[in-house]
């Protein structure tokens, strides 16, 4: 069957059109201050089973951003996957992924959210195991099983929702006195943590980089992993004090861990994945402080510039012949001038350099966090994580663009390929302008922030100092001097061992024991084999009596006689 030559462009065009529709609907809804419900009643008497779609400004803006990224990614994969014979499967999976993300975004119902939620998990699994290598198979397994924990949590919270009588949680947000079981917030939190790869479920996010790069740009930077954050934003009314404190602790730890690990990582895509993880930690952090709208704002801006970062990295990887190790990069700014500009734009935006997209959201989160009195430790950790972001971003820039040539080969022909460069340029534009535009759309009234001077300068100070430190250290590449720290962080704090190999090894060993002891041991013995032995013995005994031995006959005759005698007496 011949495939349409312009298939990718057509799909991309379709998605971008949808993006405009979603975006303008969002603008309309937010200016009118309304939202639209679609409800499809499925059944149920005491409990309402229905499929609900909710169009409000939040879901429309998020949908617009997802469609913008996916449109660009589809266009981009036309060239990136050009030599791959299975690209049709790839594009179908990507479309399925976008569809289930849309369902997730649009449904405010825990029952219909499951549809998108499970779909995301399974389709991302299909994308991670797209390449047939062993590595991608194990990466896919850890991805899908970590996500499965979240699926189960959602399933269980569905069951708990029965106690309140309706699965539509957007309704419950309006009531103050609904008695939810204590399990529901915990389960929702756990589900969000698995999807957003918070500690201890972080191992899958870097592992999932085994997927093709366009997938990473779409799935593992801006859509799938933010599903957890989005769920928590929707469920914000339910998170109590305990859950928020727990989330605060976990999110700070995740931010810190991913920042440190990214400094000791050498795989280009994994560094970016870890930076995603630290930004997810940032969003979770702001949720735990109660800054839901800011978390959503950061989610949108982050999605745009992170997709850009991944697409740029994809061009570098494509040009360098699938090499991802940054030790073989270096001095690439001469080969890829345009990509260098765009990637630095994304990197600086990630760091929160003023007036780029990341600045608007990050700065607000930091300043509002300073304004809330959460104790010096939390503030200090937040600033440290802020500077860690700068450290790994600058290290990435230094090692791949600024520093001396590293020894790998790379072809700069990619820069003349429109379908590779086009999406990158478009996304660069959006990540330039998305900050102010989205902030105007999301926050029509200015936020009042009241801070002492040194806290106001704190963020800028930490960012600036760490930038200078990193530049003077030439990208902190002398990691061998760190010994145990570099090994510990290089292995991602043993998290992959904890939730991956170690856990599965234990489970499989226990399964072996169970199989040997029960199914092939005691149960087998007492049901068939043991009965066989006992039955055999009884039979042998019986056979002995059936021998036509004269003595035995007389013995039995005498016995009967004796019995008859007694009876008669």
């Amino acid at each position, binding site marked *: 069957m011949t495939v349409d030559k312009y298939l990718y462009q057509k799909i991309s065009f379709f998605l971008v059109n949808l993006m405009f529709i979603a975006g303008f609907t969002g603008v309309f809804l937010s200016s009118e201050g309304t939202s639209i419900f679609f409800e499809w009643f499925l059944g149920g008497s005491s409990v309402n089973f229905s499929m609900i779609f909710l169009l409000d400004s939040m879901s429309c803006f998020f949908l617009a951003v997802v469609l913008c990224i996916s449109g660009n990614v589809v266009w981009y994969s036309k060239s990136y996957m050009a030599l791959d014979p299975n690209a049709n499967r790839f594009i179908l999976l990507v479309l399925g992924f976008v569809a289930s993300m849309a369902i997730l975004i649009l449904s405010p119902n825990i029952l219909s959210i499951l549809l998108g939620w499970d779909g995301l998990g399974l389709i991302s699994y299909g994308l991670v195991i797209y390449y047939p290598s062993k590595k991608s198979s194990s990466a896919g397994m850890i991805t899908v099983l970590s996500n499965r924990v979240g699926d189960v949590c959602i399933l269980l919270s569905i069951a708990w929702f029965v106690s309140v009588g309706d699965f539509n949680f957007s309704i419950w947000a309006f009531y103050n006195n609904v008695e939810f079981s204590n399990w529901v917030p915990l389960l929702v939190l756990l589900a969000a943590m698995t999807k957003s790869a918070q500690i201890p479920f972080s191992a899958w996010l870097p592992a999932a980089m085994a997927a093709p790069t366009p997938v990473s740009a779409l799935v593992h930077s801006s859509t799938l992993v933010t599903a957890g954050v989005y769920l928590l934003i929707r469920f914000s009314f339910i998170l109590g004090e305990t859950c928020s404190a727990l989330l605060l602790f976990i999110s700070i730890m995740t931010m810190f861990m991913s920042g440190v690990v990214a400094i000791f990582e050498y795989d280009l895509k994994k560094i970016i994945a870890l930076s995603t993880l630290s930004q997810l930690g940032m969003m979770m952090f702001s949720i735990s402080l109660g800054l839901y709208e800011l978390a959503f704002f950061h989610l949108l801006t982050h999605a745009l510039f992170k997709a850009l970062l991944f697409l740029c990295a994809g061009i570098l990887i494509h040009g360098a012949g699938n*090499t991802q190790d940054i030790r073989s990069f270096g001095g690439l700014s001469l080969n890829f001038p345009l990509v260098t500009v765009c990637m630095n734009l994304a990197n600086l935006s990630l760091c929160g350099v003023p007036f780029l997209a990341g600045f608007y959201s990050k700065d607000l989160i930091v300043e509002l966090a300073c304004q809330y009195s959460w104790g010096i430790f939390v503030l200090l950790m937040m600033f440290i994580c802020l500077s860690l972001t700068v450290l790994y971003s600058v290290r990435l820039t230094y090692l791949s663009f600024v520093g001396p040539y590293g*020894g790998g080969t790379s072809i700069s022909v990619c820069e003349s390929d429109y379908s590779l460069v086009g999406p990158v340029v478009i996304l660069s534009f959006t990540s330039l302008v998305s900050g102010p535009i989205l902030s105007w759309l999301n926050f029509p009234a200015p936020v009042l922030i009241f801070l002492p001077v040194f806290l106001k300068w704190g963020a800028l100070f930490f960012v600036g100092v760490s930038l200078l430190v990193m530049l003077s250290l030439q990208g902190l590449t002398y990691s061998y001097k760190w010994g145990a720290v570099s090994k510990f962080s290089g292995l991602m704090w043993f998290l992959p061992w904890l939730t991956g190999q170690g856990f599965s090894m234990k489970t499989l060993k226990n399964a072996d024991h169970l199989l040997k002891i029960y199914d092939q041991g005691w149960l087998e013995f007492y049901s068939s084999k043991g009965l066989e032995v006992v039955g055999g013995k009884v039979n042998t005994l019986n056979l002995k009596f059936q021998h036509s031995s004269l003595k035995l006959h007389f013995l039995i005759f005498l016995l009967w006689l004796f019995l008859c005698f007694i009876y008669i007496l």
Partner: protein
Amino acid sequence: MAYLQTEILGHTQKVCRLYKSALKHVFEYAPNRAAYRYAAVCVRQKFEENRHLTDALKVQTLIEDTKEELFQKQHSHPFRYATSPGGSAYGRELKSPDWVLDLWSPDEKAQYPEYFARREEMKKEYTVYWEKKFGNKAEELHHHH
């Protein structure tokens, strides 16, 4: 395919491989190209120092010690070329067997008419070659029965 040792190595080859892995090791830790060159020269220096050793036992222990040292100091992210085992792009191609082409549906085959025409010819030629070399087994079996 250096990762799979399939033959017994001579002494020279052993030392060469050790040198190569030492260079790789140095490359993994070097922050930039210049530092790597410097470290590589140092490694070369160390190897040259022991070049003229003749005591077999000493040479053997030296090689073992160096191997042990390399193992102890190994990098948490060893450098791998993309398409070699452990690399990021290793095992990405699906190697479907040749006979899968025979199972293509006719409309798929029609997209590559020349190739499939030649493939049929090739099959015939191969049959002729086979029968010339090994004899016609099918006929022989038929005769026996």
